[in-house]
């Protein structure tokens, strides 16, 4: 077996690091859009009975019990069949958004069920309407209490965004494959890429911890 040689990988490090931004962009877009969709799903779940609530729950059940990769493939191939041409990058973002919404709706739902029931009555007697109650009272409370779980899911999405490489997106993993195929130093490039994911993940954990402390101080 040949010795490990990192030199061909390290000289291409700036190119590899460029993929970090694509990885962050994919995860951030999918998380932001997924969170917005999750808020809608969870409000529907808590404000409605019957078919709307069942549809919201069914959505989460369906998407949390099937592989995310299948979901991205479905978006990647189905949208063109419907006449909508989207780039691989956008297909991945949409696929990950749909998946994130299902998980985030469950996280927010768990937070909603922990909101003290008296909050709704207090909000009513203070004169807040439903929209104001959600925007000013319920969702900020849920966001604060569920922040660790939400932050954790974002980190999972950063790692999960590696699937974008399968669709030809030049994220961190995509660029790693690219370097590996030209240098034939697959193991070395994957070790370096793994280390970069770990650094990214630790950095995010640190940022989220600071955010959490900030949230606790922010009154």
């Amino acid at each position: 077996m040949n010795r490990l040689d990192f030199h061909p990988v390290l000289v291409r490090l700036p190119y590899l690091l460029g993929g970090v931004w694509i990885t962050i962009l994919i995860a951030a877009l999918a998380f932001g859009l997924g969170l917005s969709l999750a808020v809608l799903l969870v409000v529907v779940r808590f404000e409605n009975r019957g078919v709307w609530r069942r549809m919201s729950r069914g959505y989460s059940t369906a998407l949390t019990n099937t592989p995310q990769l299948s979901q991205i493939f479905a978006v990647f191939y189905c949208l063109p069949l419907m006449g909508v041409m989207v780039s691989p990058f956008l297909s991945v973002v949409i696929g990950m958004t749909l998946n994130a919404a299902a998980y985030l709706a469950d996280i927010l739902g768990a937070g909603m069920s922990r909101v003290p029931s008296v909050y709704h009555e207090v909000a009513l007697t203070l004169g807040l309407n439903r929209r104001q109650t959600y925007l000013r009272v319920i969702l900020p409370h849920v966001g604060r209490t569920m922040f660790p779980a939400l932050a954790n899911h974002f980190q999972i999405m950063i790692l999960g965004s590696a699937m974008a490489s399968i669709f030809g997106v030049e994220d961190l993993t995509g660029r790693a494959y690219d370097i590996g195929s030209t240098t034939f130093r697959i193991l070395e490039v994957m070790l370096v890429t793994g280390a970069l994911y770990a650094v990214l993940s630790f950095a995010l954990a640190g940022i989220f911890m600071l955010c959490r402390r900030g949230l606790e101080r922010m009154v």
Partner: protein
Amino acid sequence: MPYIDVRDVCVRHGKTETLRDVGFTAERGEIVSFIGPSGSGKTTLLRTLIGLQSVECGRMTVDGRMVNMSEPGSAKVLRAQAAIVFQQFGLFGHMSVLRNLTLAPTVVAKRTHREAEHEAHELLEKLGLADKANVLPDDLSGGQKQRVAIARALMLRPALLLLDEPTSALDPRKVQEVSSLLRDLARDGMTIIQVSHAMGVVASLSDRIVLLEAGHVRALGHGRGQASQTPDIAAFMNTHSDDPESGASAGGSPQGFREPQF
């Protein structure tokens, strides 16, 4: 015509009749206390007065304006004139004390932040909480939370203030301060209705006392030293003056319940 005239309130939970033909009156600036054993419907009655409880029948006249409490939409009318302090306080845990106080005035009443914050600081000062404005509710003691909840209700400038056990979490000195505040508010024309087990406070603070039993009014009487003139009320207050929640000791007066001097 009384300022507040509540008549024929009926509330049903399934087959159980929680309130039956309940009625009472109050003049502007009076303090009315609901007393009675647990499960007698005191809190339910308080909730009907602010439209949180659906009622089968009942009407309420406030300052000559009649509200049919069983009609849809009546809750909004009731809430427009009243504020309530819940027994569990219901302070929003993710907001500072100051934001808890200014939320409704700025978001609902559209008052400016500066004006609302000025009023909130004044109220907090009056309630001995001047240094707690930027604190989260979780960092407050039970008594402090209770006073913040009262301050939040007062920020709505209600004509009718409803209080569910307003002194239950307070130490004797704070009971005196809150009672004194309630008296001042009543003197300024606010009508106050409270549910309380603190017989000493009820006796000294109330202009009227309503004794509820099994969902109906057992007796109507007067406070401020006259509680003993209504036998049922005097008997109830005597038997409950040893209650650790009552805020009064049994040996304070010949009637058993002590009437604190504020």
